[in-house]
Structures are given as C-alpha cells and as structure tokens.
C-alpha cells in the first residue's frame, strides 16, 4: 500500500521484528501516515463502518455456530435454544440478525456515495468492480444465513431463490438439483448452506483486502471529485480520518443498538418463527428488506427467464458503470443535470423496494414495470447521453481551494468532455 512511511519503531525488539516482517510499517503507512484528501465528508466514513460490520458478523457468527445444529430436525430448535438457554444467546443472535441489516444499510450508503461523487470513474474502475464483487458475496452470504434458522421464510425463500436457476434453458433443472443435493430444499441443502455461510465472510474479507489495496494505490476520491495535486490537499489518516471514522462509527453503533435492544424483530418477518413446512407455502412470501428492489425487478417481467435475467442484469450492470458514464467530471456537485437524475434514481430504487414488499398484482405490477424500465434506462441511456450533452460547472483548481472557499476556477470543461 502506498503512502510515504519512514516508520521506525522505538523499541529494539520491534526494530528487530520490523527488519524481518515490516508489518508495523505497512500499518503505519496505510492507516497513520496515509494521506487522505482534506475535504472528505461523513459519507466517507462508511468504509470503516463496513469493516466493523464484517468483524461483528464474523465474531457473532462463530459464536452462534458453537450452538447451532445444521439439521432439518434440529435447526429451528437450536436457534430457539440459543435464544432461551445459551447465556447471552439472545444478544448474540439479535446482533447477528440485525447486523446483517446494518451491513446492508451501510453498503447501500457506501454505493450511493460512490454513484454521487463518481468514485467509479478512472482510475478507480477496479476498485469499483471489487466493490460490486463484495456486494454479490454479501448477498449470497445473507441469503444462505437467512436459511439457517429453518423457519417458513427460510425454507420458502431458499426454494424460490434456488428455483431462479431453473429458468436457465436446458441445464436449469439439473443445476437446481445440484444446488439442493436432492429433489427439493432439504437436509443436504441446509447443511451445505451452513458450510458456505461460514466460508463466504472470509472470502469477503479477502476481497476487502484487495479493495483497500486498490484504494491505496489510486487514492481516495473526494467530494470535489478532483485529484490530489499537492500536500496542501491532504491530511494524514491519523488523527484526522481515524477520529472522524470513530465518531461516525459510534453514531452507527447507537443506531445499531437501538434495533438490537428495542426493536430486534422489526426488520425480520414473523413467519420465520414458524418451523419450515415443505408442504405449505406462506400466503405472502417476501425476502429480507435488502433484497426487495431486486425482487421487484424479478416480478415485474412477465416471463420467468426474462425476470431472472433482469434481476441479475440489474446488479451486473453496476460493474460496467465506469464505461457507461464517460463524463470526465466526477462529482455530482459540478454536474447539474446528473445531480437531478441521481436523485430521481435514488427515489426509483426506494420505490422498487417498496413495490417488492407488495403483492404482485394490479397497479403494483404496472408500477414495478415502469420503475424497472427506468432503472435500466438510467444506466443504459441517461448516463451515456449525459456524458456527451451535459455542460459541467467549473471545478475548483484544487482540493485546498475548494475547502478554503477560494474560487480560482479551472477552465470549464467543454460540452461533451471526453
């Protein structure tokens, strides 16, 4: 990782160690001396918050796994046993279950931050794509975790989602059998989901390392969306970013704790406290809130294969974003039109989430179709066109100027700047 570090530990023992494994120097250059743009706002604290969330899920998860039984006959009961008998089991489970939601709240803020400030643009394409991969792994992990308590929603969620693969022409049904290890969601499915649910968070941790490596190679973007030009534009990570990150994290923990202690089941679904019954589907099945926008897209398309493709496509599209939005100006601050479309897009995503929680009938379906179409149009039509036709506002000459309010402006980029 980059950043100037002439780090030399004081104690002789650490110097001895450092000559053999320069890990303290790496930490120092990455998290102490590392120069961060001086204009970062609180939207930039969510990276740290996300690392915190991953840590929380791994620690609480390992503890849950000490008491959990991955069998069709025992899973539901073992979760109730965690809730009633295990010392502080209720706390650990509620932290884990709500932790998943907190993780997604943080990741959605983090993603929309990137969308607003153009953090996916050159030279951060790989950084962005690694982020999309982390998002996909998170979705897979959360989906499989939700199956483990083996309630009605667990079972039917697993059935519906694995059945998405049956839409693939020809091989689809075979793939579904492969995923299930049988002819329906059953013991082999539960057991392998447990194994993978344990594994994937560690894979996420691995990709996070790559993500941070790429970040420290190209440097952080910032609210002005302009490159760091001199030392005047940056401050050292510690104490500046560390303090800000810590403050934000504590606020986040308060929010998190409010859910855990006061409304631990608010984000969950009551039907998941009914043991799984393979012969009866609940009348209204919905996924966890964080999947709702994608679920709405799935149901908006009246064909099975089409719906599945639109759903996966809506996520895959994100990976291509750096090449769909070619505008040179990064930050929405200096892109008056883009800024408006950004907020429309946010509303569309929230609208899709709301529609995903409604039954798929009548006006809801029509609305889902309109918003789904808009979702794709935003990426495939609006962003490419804006890159050509929008006239960006002049950007400040440097980060220092943008902070200090000096307005010696860089020459405005010409229309269709490419």
């Amino acid at each position, binding site marked *: 990782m980059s950043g100037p570090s002439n780090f030399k530990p004081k104690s002789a023992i650490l110097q001895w160690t450092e000559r053999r494994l320069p890990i303290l120097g790496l930490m120092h250059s990455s998290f102490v001396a590392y120069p961060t743009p001086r204009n970062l706002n609180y939207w930039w604290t969510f990276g740290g918050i996300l690392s915190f969330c991953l840590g929380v899920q791994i620690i609480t998860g390992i503890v849950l796994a000490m008491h959990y039984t991955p069998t069709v006959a025992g899973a539901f009961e073992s979760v109730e046993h965690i809730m009633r008998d295990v010392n502080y089991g209720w706390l650990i489970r509620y932290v884990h279950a709500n932790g998943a939601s907190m993780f997604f709240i943080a990741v959605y803020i983090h993603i929309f931050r990137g969308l607003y400030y153009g953090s996916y643009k050159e030279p951060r394409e790989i950084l962005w794509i690694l982020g999309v991969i982390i998002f996909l792994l998170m979705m897979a992990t959360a989906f499989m975790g939700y199956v483990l308590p083996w309630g009605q929603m667990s079972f039917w969620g697993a059935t519906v989602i694995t059945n998405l693969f049956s839409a693939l022409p020809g091989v689809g049904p075979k793939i579904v059998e492969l995923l299930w290890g049988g002819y329906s969601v059953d013991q*082999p499915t539960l057991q392998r989901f447990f194994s993978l649910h344990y594994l994937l968070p560690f894979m996420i941790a691995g990709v996070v390392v790559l993500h941070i490596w790429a970040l420290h190679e190209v440097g952080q973007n910032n609210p002005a969306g302009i490159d760091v030009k001199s030392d005047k534009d940056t401050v050292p990570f510690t104490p500046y970013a560390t303090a800000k990150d810590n403050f934000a994290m504590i606020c986040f923990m308060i929010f998190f704790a409010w859910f855990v202690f006061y409304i631990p089941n608010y984000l969950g679904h009551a039907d998941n406290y009914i043991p799984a019954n393979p012969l009866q589907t609940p009348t209204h099945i919905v996924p966890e809130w964080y999947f709702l926008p994608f679920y709405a897209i799935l149901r908006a398309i009246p064909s*099975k294969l089409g719906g599945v493709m639109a759903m996966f496509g809506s996520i895959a599209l994100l990976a291509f974003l750096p090449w769909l939005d070619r505008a040179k100006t990064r930050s929405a601050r200096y892109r008056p039109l883009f800024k408006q479309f950004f907020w429309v897009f946010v509303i569309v995503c929230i609208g899709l989430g709301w529609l995903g929680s409604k039954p*798929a009938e009548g006006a809801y379906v029509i609305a889902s179709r309109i918003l789904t179409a808009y979702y794709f149009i935003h990426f495939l039509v609006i962003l490419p066109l804006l890159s050509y036709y929008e006239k960006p506002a002049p950007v400040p000459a440097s980060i220092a100027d943008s902070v200090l309010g000096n307005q010696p402006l860089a020459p405005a980029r010409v229309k269709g700047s490419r």
Partner: protein
Amino acid sequence: MTLEAFNRGAAIGRILPIFAGFAPRIGATADVQASPFRGVLLEARPLRRDDGKDRNLATTKTMNGEQPTRRDFLYIATGAVGAVGAAAVAWPLVHQMNPDASVQALASTEVDLSPIAEGQIVTVKWRGKPVFISHRTKAEIQAAEATPLRDLPDPQPDSARVQKGKEQWLIVVGVCTHLGCVPLGHQGDYKGWFCPCHGSHYDTSGRIRKGPAPANLVVPSYTFTSDTMVRIG
C-alpha cells in the same frame, strides 16, 4: 535444433493435423543456436554466452509471434494435460453436491386412494416435495376436457395428463413451475390451483392458465398397483 527434432515436429504435424502448421516453422528456426532458453524468452532479454558477446536471443522470429517453437508446443501440451487433470479433480468436488444414493433410494411412494372422497385433494410427500392427488368431480373433468388447446400457454390435452379409465384421478407434483411454491387447491380463476407467491392460476387439469409460471404442473410417473393403490415414482 537438430534434424531429429525437426522430424519430430513434422511427425506431430502428421499425426495431429491441428499442429500441422508447427512443423515447417519449427524447421525454419533450426538455424538459431539451440539453447535451453530459446523460445522461453519471449521478452527481449540479453543473454551472455561463452564467447562474451551479448546476444539477444529473443530476437528470433519467435518474438514476432510468427514462429511457434517446439517449446511453445510443449507449453500448450503441458497446459492441456494440466487442465484435463484439474477438471478430473474438480468433477468429484462438484458431483458430490448432486443427490446422493440415500436421497435417490427414497424415490418412490405408495398411496392408498380409498379414503380420498370425490372433490377432495390430498397432498402426499414424494422426494421431499408435495404431490397433489385430486379426486376430480364430473364437472371438473368436463371443464378440463372441454378447454380448447389454443387457450393454453402450455398446450396439453387433459387425456395426456391422466390415465385412461382413471380420469377421476389427477396426480401432479404440487410445485409451482414458476419458482417452486406450493399452490393452493380449489382456488384461482380456473378453480384448479392458485399460487400465492406470484399469482399463477392453474385449471382442474393442473395446467397453467394465467400468471408467470411457464409450464403445467408436472405429472410424475406413477402406476396403479391395484384399483385403490398407486405407486408414485
């Protein structure tokens, strides 16, 4: 390169026509000093030889990408064998996920039909899934038989979904062909089944009529072992 090696190259070309292109080109580089590194050094790198002169061996024709050498062939061959080996190891790791012997062994179920009253649908479990056994009324059979095929998204006559002489018994897998929910009996616009998950309507023959499901409810293979006993699977 020795003549022997050239001949070997040509022989490979004769045996495996896809490598035919290699043979003459292997020959064409034969004038270049044989060196264990030749062909390895695709990037230009000076190499000292005994005579003390720097020679950039990579400036053979190999560098233009035109002249695959015997060594290139060996790389490709080694890589190919390695890939086959990796696939051979990967297959058991993938196949272990498929239904195992104990799951397959439970693949048939016997059901006594005598307690099922006319107009009643019972659900039995087969391979972990629900199977609907519907004892259809005259009206239901008639409705199913009278439906013109052109009204069906997945056209199939009722006669293809029941056994001859046993038209009162409709046996279908109770799994919605959309995404696998269990539809509810005697409901929906066609009074067959209705799937609450995403709104698919099936008729009294278990055929899809309306909604996102692409196909009719699946008829499993079954045989009547006696007048009142049926074996599914």
